[in-house]
């Protein structure tokens, strides 16, 4: 190895595999002595045994701690950084949720339900609360994420039409072109054709285009309200009336519910199905990508189709009910991401109806404040009107949103969502959430202004940012062209 390469290798944060040394031990498991001298051939049968090597890392406990502490330090997070990632609702995740959830981790899904009454009671009441919050008649807590909730909800619509003998005819699911990618992907996965509807100059769905697309072949319309541009669909009651007249089901993508909790309910807007992202609105942490949780609420006519099992109450005890002849069936194993449901439940108990109303109010207040600040410092906002919990801005002509995102990194601020929704070019979607202070937002606006001024004076500075992160811009094209997806492959390279 030449000196330059050697220096680079030293600068790279080692992989856990590169810290490994044959024979080194970390944790010794319980009763390990019982593994000594066991004849696995006798126990498991010679043909059933693993003969290939098991190349897992071999490290001491301190190596392990240094490694994962080091990795944790190479991360931005809500706990450390302002994180106005639009559509993702990166609000503060209260510590009390984590403490409470810790009391519910050691429960087995198949233990005697009489020994899990606290867990079942919690689930029963959480479903009831979410029904109240969304204006829906019944709620399943099973889906693992927003997209999984969408799938569950659209399948219920499918079963509903099947039960009415209309499935052959109801082929189409309509989504706005600004919809999140999971909406069309879900509809396709559930066996429907997707039709996309354009938006209008006010950032809402083009009502005439939508109306023209409605006919008896349509099974459902999937909407987000406020939509993915952060704008409330003001004609929602007309849309739902039109849908209802044709028997079309209205689906609410609840990723943006943080704008309206306590202010309005999708059920009252005429939606038949809703999923909620508890990892957005209800303070379940995002975990660096998941696990999320995507409960689905429905109106009474769809209740028979809920996935199994459901949680039922009889007198003062709670049980799992499996016998649901019209159910869509199972969408996953067991009963949902229970650990996350505990967190969301804790949050709802903490805030109560009034606190939830306040949270959404402040989320919308903050987003509007930042929209006005952005306009004042020289950014355009995509639709010049009051927005809800998030807004879309664009940089001055000729400048790239990606570059602004990269420049923010050096200031310790996580960028907004970039290049979504696809309908606004160079879009920056900003969602501060209700838990951020005036001072944090002011600093963000100051930083954005500074970046803008520095970039105008020195465009090359902007194009090459960031400068102080643990790695700088990465070659994503090379990553996709010559995929290196495991240590095994990388070390052979």
């Amino acid at each position, binding site marked *: 190895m030449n000196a330059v390469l050697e220096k680079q290798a030293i600068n790279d944060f080692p992989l856990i595999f590169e810290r490994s040394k044959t024979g080194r031990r970390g944790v010794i498991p319980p009763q390990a002595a019982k593994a000594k001298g066991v004849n696995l051939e006798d126990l498991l049968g010679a043909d059933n045994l693993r003969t290939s090597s098991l190349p897992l890392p071999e490290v001491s406990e301190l190596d392990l701690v240094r490694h994962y502490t080091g990795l944790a330090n190479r991360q931005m997070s809500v*706990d450390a950084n302002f994180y106005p990632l639009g559509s993702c609702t990166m609000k503060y995740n209260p510590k009390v949720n984590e403490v409470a959830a810790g009391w519910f981790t050691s429960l087995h899904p198949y233990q005697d339900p009489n020994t899990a009454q606290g867990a079942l009671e919690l689930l029963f009441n959480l479903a009831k609360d979410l029904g109240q919050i969304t204006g829906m008649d019944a709620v399943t807590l099973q889906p693992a994420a927003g997209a999984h909730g969408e799938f569950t909800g659209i399948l219920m619509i499918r079963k509903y039409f099947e039960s009415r003998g209309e499935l052959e005819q109801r082929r189409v699911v309509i989504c706005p072109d600004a919809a999140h990618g999971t909406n069309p992907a879900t509809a396709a996965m559930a066996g429907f054709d997707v039709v996309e509807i354009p938006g209008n100059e006010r950032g809402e769905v083009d009502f005439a285009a939508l109306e023209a697309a409605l006919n008896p072949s349509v099974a459902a319309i999937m909407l987000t309200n406020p939509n993915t541009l952060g704008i409330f669909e003001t004609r929602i009651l007309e849309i739902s009336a039109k849908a209802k007249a044709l028997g079309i089901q209205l689906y609410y993508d609840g990723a943006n519910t943080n704008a309206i909790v*306590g202010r309005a309910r999708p059920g009252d807007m005429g939606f038949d199905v809703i999923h909620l992202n508890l990892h957005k609105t209800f303070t379940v942490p995002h975990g660096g990508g998941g696990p999320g949780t995507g409960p689905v609420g429905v109106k009474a006519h769809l209740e028979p189709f809920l996935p199994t099992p459901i949680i039922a109450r009889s007198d003062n005890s709670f049980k799992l009910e499996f016998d649901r002849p019209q159910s869509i*069936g199972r969408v996953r194993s067991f009963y949902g991401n229970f650990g996350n449901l505990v967190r969301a439940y804790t949050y709802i108990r903490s805030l109560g109806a009034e606190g939830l109303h306040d949270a959404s109010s402040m989320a919308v*207040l903050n987003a509007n404040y930042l929209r006005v600040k952005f306009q004042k410092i020289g950014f355009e906002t995509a639709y010049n009107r009051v927005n809800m919990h998030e807004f879309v801005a664009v940089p001055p002509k000729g400048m790239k949103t990606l570059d602004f995102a990269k420049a923010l990194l050096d200031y310790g601020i996580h960028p907004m969502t970039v290049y979504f929704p696809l309908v606004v070019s160079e879009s920056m979607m900003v969602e501060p959430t209700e838990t951020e202070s005036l001072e944090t937002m002011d600093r963000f606006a100051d930083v954005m202004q500074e970046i803008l001024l520095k970039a105008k004076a020195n465009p090359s500075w902007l194009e090459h940012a960031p400068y102080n992160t*643990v790695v700088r811009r*990465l070659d994503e094209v090379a990553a996709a062209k010559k995929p290196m997806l495991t240590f095994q492959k990388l070390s052979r390279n």
Partner: protein
Amino acid sequence: MKYTPHTPEDVKHILETIGVASVDALFDDLPEAIRNPKIDIPAGLDEHGVLEHMKGLAAKNLSLEAAPSFLGGGMRHHFQPSAVNALTFQSSFVTAYTPYQPEVSQGELQAMFEYQSMIAALTGLDISNSSLYDGATAVAEAALLAMRQTNRSTVLVSRGVHPEYRETLTTFLECVGAKLVNLELEGTITISQAVEPDIAAVIVQNPNFLGSLEDMKVLAARAHEAGALFIAVVDPLSLAVVQAPSEYSADIAVGDGQVVGNAANFGGPAYGFIAVKEALMRQLPGRIVGATKDVDGKRGFVLTLQAREQHIRRAKAKSNICSNHALMALQSAIYLSALGPNGLREVATVSAVMARELESTLNRVGLKTLTTGKYFNEFVVKLPKPAEEIRQALSKKGVHGCVPVPLEYGFGNAGLFAATELTTSSDIAKLEAALKNIL
């Protein structure tokens, strides 16, 4: 409680800046008829009040820590080393989003790259994504993948695959018009038979739901003779000692990762894993992390092969999955690193050893083993009464008993028992004493 920081002066200043008279005015776009609905949920509690309330609910559960557990069937109670939780639940992992900005997400991205490498190591296959929701949806995604790859739409699934996974598979396949056919069992082992040429995939679980270790080599060969993909549903802990999917040429390996490092969490969250041969890489659903270099030549990691995903391909994506179960996969990677190959082998071996002690005890009290052939650490016994009744009677005596075996298997009353490295001889003695009273 409240987590909103504004003082009244802050709110006033913000409203003036926006140029509106009140917070309510920001909601003028909402139709008047639906504004400010009454929501019937109790008033909020202060933090201490919330904790007391949650403690009250927790007290109505019998924790796996408080009573010996013989429960398996997809999840088990294993030992959680202290370092694993301490390192997993660091707030910079917990409160980050999906690593969209790689320069400030190297911790998560590298951890997922390492996780993918560990899944590849366990299964012996080439490529892993960075997690799915759970074992059941992983099976469904694997079947859909096989259908895309082979352009066929019938899937053969062994009845030995976890019943809840098969139910989930049914849900996912039915709506796209795919057909699901069962491979039947003899005793508790899958019957190997010639596979029809229109089959996209053959799905077999090893060890299967009833505990048996299957003849995976023969079953895989039958699938491949018909041009079908072979999907192995595996228990990742078992792979420390039981043959790896690569050793019987499986094309896809999937499963639930709970048993290697996640708490049981009353059924979730854990995570689903999926690993494939290199040729299937571009068919994978979900996030994948790859290694690359930055502009200075430093090694770094990014989300890659995104042209498969919903945010790019929309209706044509390989799957609708967006958020995955990264934190649970991370917890598992830390667990696997903490134990290493030797520790994992010990956990697996001790689990198998204790299962034999458990089996002979159950046989001694008159419960006959129904599982045929060899098993790893779970097995089925015939019961004289419904398993639910026995489970309940055992729980009253402070023992988490057995998983009821569904009637579809034709055994009548039967229960699935499991042992782990946490199962001690005195736990088994406690179970024996309780059973003597019940049976």
